[in-house]
């Protein structure tokens, strides 16, 4: 019974959309770490922020809390810092949704230094060309860098590896 409730709570929380990129869910991004029912019967959702200063963190926590409450749970949100969030936690489905939305997903494998600082090949999310150049290390939000496709000439956001 409790196990089923926990599964239902996870499904409810996992369906919450990211406020900045409202095509991916908090589960797709790997921000939602777990949902459990504790001894007091509360639904405890553990959430890991992407960046220390990400302004969306509070909005995301409130949205998860509201979704759980609407589904009849007594929610409790726990912010968890360790282990630190990494782009490796973005699911394959999440990566595909990002690409379809026009944001190049992080090049896989953030754990290597090369992925963060080396010359990685970022494919254009629109025309899939590999001939792209970085315009700025920082994009419209803390988690993105700004790129341009040299083939179709469209500028685009790249979800950077951390």
């Amino acid at each position, binding site marked *: 019974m409790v196990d089923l409730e926990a599964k239902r709570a996870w499904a409810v929380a996992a369906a919450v959309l990211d406020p900045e990129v409202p095509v991916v869910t908090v589960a797709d991004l790997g921000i939602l770490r777990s949902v459990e029912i504790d001894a007091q019967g509360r639904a405890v959702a553990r959430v890991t922020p992407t*960046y220390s*200063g990400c302004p969306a963190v509070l909005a995301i926590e409130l949205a998860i809390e509201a979704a759980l409450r609407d589904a009849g749970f007594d929610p409790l949100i726990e912010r968890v*810092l360790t282990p630190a969030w990494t782009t490796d936690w973005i699911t394959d489905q999440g990566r595909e949704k990002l690409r379809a939305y026009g944001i190049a997903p992080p090049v896989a494998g953030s754990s290597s230094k090369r992925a963060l600082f080396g010359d990685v090949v970022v494919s254009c999310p629109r025309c899939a060309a590999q001939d792209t150049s970085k315009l700025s290390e920082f994009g419209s939000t803390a988690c993105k860098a*700004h790129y341009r496709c040299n083939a179709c000439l469209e500028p685009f956001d790249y979800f950077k590896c951390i």
Partner: protein
Amino acid sequence: MHAPLFAALIRLADDHLILGHRLSEWCGHAPMLEEDLAMPNIALDLIGQARALYSYAGDIEAAGRDEDLLAFGRLERDYQNLLICELPNGDFAQTMLRQFYFASFMLLFWAEAEGSSNATVAAVAAKAVKEAKYHRRHCGEWVIRLGDGTEESTLRMQEACFVLEPYLGEFFAVDDVAIEMSKASILPNPQSLRGAWLADVCEVFVSAKLQAPDLTHAHKGGRQGRHTEAMGHLLAQLQYMQRSFPNMTW
């Protein structure tokens, strides 16, 4: 209350809040659109790190002060940031050079703090080290581009070196709080990072064609709450909302 830990957390948080505030002053005034995005992004990271530190400091103090009260409700002499963090931005070269110095130092600092005996400190460090790495790279590139750039940009970067040099020694100053923290393996001893920091700075300075900084003369006082004349003006802006509408929330 663990008094040295509280003091050490406040110092670190103040460094990040004050420098983050300074950096945010560039929002809407940067020399190009990309930098107009970059600088507030870095500022956000710093203020986010400060938030986590203030909030933990409030828990340690256990006197009912939360992150907002610690950030906005203290007097000038209660802030214990490094003086370099509160200096006016100067031009873009000076802002970037300061940010590079700071990011290079914090990268070394957080990397060691990741192994802290204190779990909360280790968690904040693990997050911050990734962010500092990015800042260090971005600002280092600007130091090279401007230092080894046009006649004008070279002059400005050299001037920035000259202005900031007397404030560098304070990064490595050690007192009872710092010693206590390093003995308990909570935070690294800043003095022990001096060599690695100088090596990192010199690596960039060689490409930037700049002279290595001289750390012998150092202005001090920030850690004791003795500030430059710039600090009061900065706080007037930073604290305006909380002073005008005490305990307001968004």
